C-alpha cells in the first residue's frame, strides 16, 4: 500500500504527506487536513489510504473525522457560505440573515444547492465582531449585512458563476 502511494503522486501535498509519514504519533489530524485541502472533502478512498499507511483502523479515523467540525465527508459547493453565529452576530440579527440566505438559496444550513454552486454552513465565530452580522463566502468576509444586502451579494456571486460558464461555452 505504502509503495503505491510513494510512486503514484508524491508531488501532491496530500500524497506527499502520506508518503512522508514515518509513524510519528499525532499525525492523523494533519493528514486529514491535507486530504481535505486536496479533495475539498474527505472521500472514502482518502480514509482508506490513511488507514493503510498509519495502521489506524478506518473506524477510528471515521471517529476522529466526525468529532471535529472542520472535516466534511461530502463535497462542497463552489461557494461555501459560512454564516457567523457568534454572540455579537446573534445580538445583531444573525438569525434573520441566515433565514434570508436559506430563502434566497432554497436550502437549509448544512446543504448544498442542486447546481452545486452554494453550500451554507454556520460557524461559531469569525472574529470580526465589530462588523456583525457577518458572513464569509469562501475567503471573503462580508459585514454589516441586512436582508437586502445579503441577497444582493449572493446574486452577484451567482451572476459571476453564470457569466464564467457562458464565456467558457462561447470560447469552446
Amino acid at each position: 500500500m505504502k509503495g503505491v502511494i510513494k510512486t503514484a503522486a508524491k508531488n501532491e501535498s496530500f500524497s506527499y504527506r502520506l508518503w512522508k509519514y514515518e509513524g510519528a504519533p499525532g499525525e492523523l489530524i494533519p493528514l486529514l487536513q491535507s486530504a481535505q485541502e486536496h479533495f475539498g472533502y474527505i472521500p472514502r478512498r482518502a480514509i482508506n489510504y490513511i488507514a493503510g499507511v498509519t495502521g489506524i483502523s478506518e473506524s477510528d479515523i471515521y471517529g476522529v473525522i466526525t468529532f471535529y467540525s472542520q472535516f466534511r465527508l461530502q463535497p462542497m459547493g463552489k461557494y461555501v457560505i459560512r454564516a457567523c453565529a457568534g454572540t455579537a452576530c446573534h445580538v445583531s440579527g444573525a438569525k434573520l440573515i441566515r433565514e434570508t440566505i436559506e430563502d434566497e438559496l432554497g436550502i437549509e444550513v448544512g446543504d448544498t444547492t442542486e447546481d452545486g454552486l452554494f453550500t451554507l454552513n454556520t460557524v461559531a465565530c469569525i472574529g470580526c465582531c465589530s462588523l456583525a452580522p457577518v458572513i464569509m463566502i469562501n475567503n471573503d468576509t462580508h459585514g454589516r449585512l441586512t436582508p437586502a444586502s445579503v441577497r444582493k451579494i449572493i446574486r452577484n456571486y451567482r451572476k459571476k458563476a453564470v457569466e464564467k460558464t457562458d464565456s467558457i461555452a462561447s470560447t469552446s
Partner: protein
Amino acid sequence: MKRIIVGMGTCGLSAGAQATYNRLEELAEANPDVCMLSRTGCIGMCYREPLVEIREGDNRIIYGGVTSESADKIFSKHVLGNEIIDDDNLVYGCGSDGKTFGSECEFLDQQERIVLRNCGIIDPESIKEYEDAGGYEGARKALNEMTSEEIIQTIKDSGLRGRGGAGFPTGLKWSFAAANEGEQKYVICNADEGDPGAFMDRSVLEGDPHAILEGMIVCAKAIEATFGYIYCRAEYPLAIHRLEIAILEARERGYLGTNIMDSGFDFDLKIKQGAGAFVCGEETALFASIEGERGMPRIRPPFPAEKGLWQKPTNNNNVETFANVPWIICNGAEAYSAFGTEKSPGTKVFALAGKVVHGGLAEVPMGTTIEDLVFKIGGGIKEGKEFKAVQMGGPSGGCIPAVMKNTPVDFESIPATGAIMGSGGMVVMDEDTCMVSIARFFLDFTQKESCGKCTFCRIGTLRMLEILERLTRGEGEPEDIEKLEKLSVQIKEASLCGLGQTAPNPVQTTIRYYLDEYEAHIYDKKCPAGECQALVEFYIEPDKCVGCTLCAKNCPVDAISGKVKEVHVIDDEICVKCGKCLTSCNFGAVKTR
C-alpha cells in the same frame, strides 16, 4: 521620512484594508523618497477600520475608514503636502509633546497597553521591528542571567494569573511543572480561542506573534522544557500564517533551536492546527487533539504538570498570559503588580462587541468597572438605546445586568455575579435582546460542542435546550424554570471538564436576573424584548413601506394586504409568524413588537 502603516488584522482586511494597502503601495512606489509603507496588526479600533497611520518621528496620525479612494487624498495632502486632514476621519493623533487629539482619542488614551504593547505599532511579519521595540530582551535576560527559580519567583511576585479564564496563578503553575522530573517536558500555548464573541488572542497572534514565542521561551527555561506546541484554531488562517513566519525568523536568528542565544539551552516549537472543536480549549482535551485523537477531556489527577501531553510533564498557558511574560521579565514584577487590583494584578484585554458603539479591543487595568468599559471606552450603546446587560465568558459565562454596572472587572468580583471572567469577550446587549433567547443561544452552542463523554453534559444540555426552545416558541410550562434550575445543578456536578461544569451558567444567570422575562414567556406568551419570533406581532412601518408588494407575494397565508405603491398592512389574526416578509423586504419596513 514618513511611514504609512495600514492596519491589517482580520478585522481590517474584512473591512477592505487590502484594497487600501494596494492603492497606497502604488502611490508609495511612485514616491519612494517620501515614505515607507508597512503593515501592522489590529490597532484595536475595529469599528473604524480600515485604519491608516502616518508616522513621522514621534508624531502619529491615524485615519479611519480609509478606502482606496480616500487613500489618494490622504497621500496627496498629508504625505506629500504635510497637511493633516482634520476631519471626522482623523480618529487619533499624537504629537511629539505627547498630547493626543482626534475623534476617538479617548478610546486609546484610557487604555494601559502591556499585552497589546506592539499590536498596531509594529509589522508582525518583521522580527527586526519586534527587536527594535525591545523584543527578545526578556528571553535573553531569562536565559543568560536568571535561574529557573528566579524566573518562577518573578512571575509569582508579579501576581500574573492565567488569562484563559480560570485565573490560576501562573508562577505557581510553572513551579508544579518545574518540580516534576522528566527528560522531556512540554510548553503549550493554547490559542484555540473558541468563545464566540472573543477575539483578543487572535489580535495578539496576528499583531505580535513574537511576544508569544518569547513568553514560551521564558517558560521553557523556567520549567526546563525543550519542546513546545502552539495549538491554534484552523479558523484563524492569518494568525497561523504570521506565526509560521515568526517561527522561521526566530529560528534564523537563533532564538529557537539548539543553544539558543548562546545559553546552552535548547528549545523549539511547532504549530498544531485545531480542527474545530470548542472542547479542545480544555487542556486535557487539547492534549488528546495534539496526539491525533478525538479531543475528549481526561480525568485529573494526574495533572498535566505531572502527566500531560504524551504522558510527560506539561505546562499549558493561554496566548495573553504568554504575551505578558516578556514584559514582566524586562520591567520587573513590581511594575506589573502596580497595575490592577491586589488579588488580580496587571491588565486585561477585552473584546468589546455587540450593541456597543466602539466595538474593538481594549486593554485596561484589572478592576476597571463594567460601566467604564462600556461607556467611557466603548462609547455607550448604539442608536442611543438602553443598556441592558453584558455577557462575559461566552458559553461558560453569564449575563451581568445593567444595574450591576459598577462591578469591577477582576477575578473576584465577576464570579460573584454568577458569570465568569473568561478570556475577555464582552458582548454588550441592549433593550432589544431577549434574555431567554440568549440563554437558548448559548445552550445550543454548548449542546453541539459537548464531546459526549459525560452523560449529564451530553443529555442534560439537550434537555435544557429543548425546554428553552419551547419557551421561545411560547409553549413553556410553569414548572420549566424549576426543571432548568435542577438540571443546571446536576450538569455542573456530574461533568468532568469545564465545558459541562460551566454550561448552565448562561441559564442560571439569566434566571437569576431576568426571572420576569422567563415568566412573561411562560404565562403571558410574550417576549418583552420583541425578539422571539413566535411571540411577537409583525407590522409594517408606514413611513418605510413603498408598496412594492414583495412581502405580500411572499406571505404563505395571505395575511398581507395592500395595493401597488401603497402602504401594506399585516393582519395579525391570519399571520403565522414565519418571518418571510421580514427577510423579503428590501426597505426594512417590516418590524416586530
